[in-house]
């Protein structure tokens, strides 16, 4: 099993360690609910060094990134971040990712840990014009510092102003005495904050500085379990659950990152454009339980005539709303807001209702 550069510190801090995407990662420290609330109300720090980082550089960099991602790379400017996905050439998704534009000839792609090898092979395969590409995943560490107080607390570690940064932008800063730290106002929690990237050898120093700078604001280390409940309360997709090689970005509700603009000739564009125009037979929808119960991945969804109309892709008890929430692929015509559906929880069919995202509005 792989370890991140902070493995020793997680053990020291009492993290409950599990295997995730080939890495030994902390799933929980103090408890999932307290960790979740800490991020919603103050700030928490996550080790997300398992994520993958690919650099794409040179005169052909733009062309490659534009070709393999669904969003419009031409709309980026220096210092801007974009959420996107790699269409797989068969109507599905290879992975979802972030694209960072340093300049017109330099991009950083941040991908999911579980897909690093698959994604790298995909990028290499499509690099027909020989952009300079490198896989920095093994040497790069990443922390997510998330919560309403995160930027204010982290400001003490850098002289570059960060509290006024716009959402989904980044700067290269000196952070906790370490030069060339990438700091972006991104995250997977919906509670604001930043993510920072740096070399493995600086990981312990930076992690300790973050804990210290956040101490007065109530910072806590947060595990992967709370990362999942936080993202699900916002309705953010998780690759492997809500999206995969056989779900299209259109049916997953990711039309907003699938841009049919002039010059954006990405893989699967004709297919997805047709799908967007004609509609899909199923859609990824958010639902809240009406009856008491907790939806889980793979539970079946029924209509009131007892016909199967879908399957749950993610589900949990929402720590903020204190009720069961989930996402499911649901067949038309049962996808409208307010439609009553039934989730089969063990041997019972429990009532639920299709709702708008996000579940938690802060």
């Amino acid at each position, binding site marked *: 099993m792989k370890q991140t550069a902070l493995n020793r510190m997680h053990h020291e801090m009492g993290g409950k360690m599990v295997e995730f995407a080939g890495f030994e990662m902390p799933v929980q420290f103090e408890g999932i609910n307290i960790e979740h609330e800490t991020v919603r109300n103050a700030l928490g720090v996550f080790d997300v060094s398992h994520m993958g980082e690919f650099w794409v550089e040179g005169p052909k960099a733009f062309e490659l990134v534009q070709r393999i991602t669904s969003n419009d790379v031409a709309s980026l400017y220096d210092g801007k971040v974009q959420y996107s996905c790699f269409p797989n050439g068969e109507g599905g998704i290879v992975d979802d990712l972030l694209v960072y534009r340093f300049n017109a000839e330099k991009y950083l792609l941040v991908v999911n840990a579980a897909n690093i090898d698959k994604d790298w092979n995909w990028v290499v395969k499509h690099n027909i014009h020989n952009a300079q590409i490198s896989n920095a995943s093994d040497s790069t560490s990443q922390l997510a510092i998330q919560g309403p107080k995160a930027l204010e607390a982290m400001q003490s570690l850098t002289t570059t102003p960060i509290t006024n940064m716009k959402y989904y932008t980044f700067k290269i800063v000196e952070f906790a005495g370490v030069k060339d730290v990438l700091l972006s106002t991104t995250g997977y929690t919906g509670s604001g904050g930043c993510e920072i990237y740096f070399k493995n050898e600086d990981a312990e120093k930076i992690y300790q500085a973050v804990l210290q700078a956040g101490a007065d604001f109530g910072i806590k280390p947060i595990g992967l379990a709370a990362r999942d*409940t936080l993202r699900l309360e916002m309705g953010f997709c998780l690759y492997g659950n809500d999206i995969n090689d056989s779900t299209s970005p259109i049916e997953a509700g990711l039309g907003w990152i699938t841009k049919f603009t002039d010059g954006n000739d990405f893989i699967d564009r004709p297919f997805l454009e047709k799908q967007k125009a004609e509609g899909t037979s199923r859609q990824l929808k958010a639902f809240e339980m009406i009856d*008491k119960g907790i939806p889980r991945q793979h539970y079946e969804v029924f209509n009131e005539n007892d016909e199967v109309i879908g399957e749950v892709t993610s589900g949990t008890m929402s720590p903020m709303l204190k009720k069961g929430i989930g996402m499911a692929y649901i067949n038309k015509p049962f996808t409208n807001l307010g439609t009553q559906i039934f989730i089969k929880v063990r041997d019972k069919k429990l009532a639920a209702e299709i709702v708008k995202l996000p579940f938690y509005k802060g």
Partner: protein
Amino acid sequence: MNIPAGLKYTKDHEWIRVEGNEAFVGITDFAQKELGDIVFIEVDTVDEELDAEETFGTIEAVKTVSDLFMPVSGTVLEFNESLEDAPETVNKDPYGKGWIVKIKLSDPAQLDRLLDTDAYKALVEA
């Protein structure tokens, strides 16, 4: 690890406290720590007579679902309804206010098959 004397335990990390012909059943401190924050407990077997190791309910943590098993054969007399609104009581007080069901024993001799405090301690500390 809190493993009180005077209770009997199962390999599934449940405890049983016998009072005459009746008994209280819950999950151990070890089990609640392993599960993490408990968010839902469902028991719809009240008044049913169940065999030892049959499922009498389910317990859900944020991330997981687990079945609850009868430590011995018996009739489920009562579900601790305070857990419907406050399932976290099982985390806070697993051997006290966090009891889950009260049962009537069908065959008290079955209690001898369960683990005593030392045997359970050996199991979880192995």
